[in-house]
């Protein structure tokens, strides 16, 4: 199978899954309607609609980790192609990536020393 065919197959699978879910919804609807009763559709809290908006700002207390995560996530984009040719390139590949990772790891240690690795 060519790559295009494989991706089309995966797309077909995603659409097929959607079809299964929709038919399940149809089946459930055929088994009976949902009765509209007061208070039934209030989200779980104290029984009334919440006073404060839920879609407000949320203090992301892990933002120190999140910033470091961005650096490490970018690094992973380089790691996959590197991993495939690693055996071929041998020691050079180990040193190349070793230097890169060492710098990144020093950054992690620095962040740690500055208190980035805690819930703010």
């Amino acid at each position, binding site marked *: *199978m060519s*790559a295009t065919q*494989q*991706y089309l*197959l*995966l797309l077909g*699978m*995603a659409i097929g*899954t*959607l079809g299964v*879910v929709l038919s*399940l*919804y149809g*089946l*459930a609807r055929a*088994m*009976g309607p*949902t*009765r509209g009763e007061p208070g*039934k*559709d*209030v*989200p*779980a*809290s104290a029984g009334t*609609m*919440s006073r404060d908006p*839920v*879609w407000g700002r*949320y203090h*992301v*207390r*892990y933002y120190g*980790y*999140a910033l470091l*995560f961005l650096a*490490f*996530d970018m690094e*992973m984009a380089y*790691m*996959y192609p590197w*991993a*495939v*040719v*690693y*055996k*071929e390139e*041998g*020691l050079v*590949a*180990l040193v190349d*990536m*070793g230097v890169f*990772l060492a710098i990144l*790891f020093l950054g*992690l240690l620095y962040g*740690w020393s500055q208190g980035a*690795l*805690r*819930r703010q």
Partner: protein
Amino acid sequence: MSIAIVLFALLVTAWFLAMIESWTATGRLHPAAPLLSGLAHLGRESVVPRTPDRVFFETAPVLLLVAAMLGAAVLPLAPNLIIADLATGALFFNAALAYVLVALIMGGWGPNGAYAMVGGWRFLGQLIAYAMLIVMPITAVAMRAESLVNTAIVGSQESLWNIVYQPLGFVLFYIAAMALAFRPPFDLPTAEGELAGGVDAEYTGVRLAVLRLARLLLVVTLASATTVFYLGGWHGPLLPPWAWSLIKTLAVAVSMLLVGHYLPRIREADLLGWCWKLGIPLALLNIFIVGLLILVVP
């Protein structure tokens, strides 16, 4: 044909897992329990919250299911039993499971309920903790196989399974996989008794059934990935290849349920701390050790 077989195997594994899960909950082993429970969910009312973001609310369960299915589609059951043997299979697996986060944030945002929203944001923090521990061990696996093709990764383990070759990577991947599937002790987004079900809280009836099925398939997908990446996939004596894949997948999935059964839920701050202060240095060490092993041992 092979597609139908793989999908059927996926369903059978999920069925067994659901059976065992209901066994731990009720104390009775009932072969038809998953079917009865599913039908009961279909018969119940499916309530939509009063002021929802309808698009997010409806998309979340479907997206979670699709993500789990796509992840399973690139994992081989036997040399020829695979839906799509992509050239970048290991990478695609990561990409598909990244949508678990999107689905859970949507599920948290959609119903406009406080508990659900907290659950959704919590999972974002959980992703920041576990994500590196999924991708870094897979890198070390790809280094040994010299390929991102999942069948080639299994092929590279014919003489020695990766669990022996890189045990550190296995432990990290196993823990991170449990966090990705938000099984206890990492069930932060759906914490029962603490968030009233969190992301699950506002889903009822058939939508909850789809959400539960998606969670189950997610566990199966990750157990299957553990098998493919670390437990030698289809390799094994006597039995046919597909049987070994199924047995190993089921064993890993059951072990994940068991571990979660006996551990208390971990706090988000602790999870982040452990993953970044211990997990990531260990994952980097694992890559270094595997790199040395590849160069030294021919």
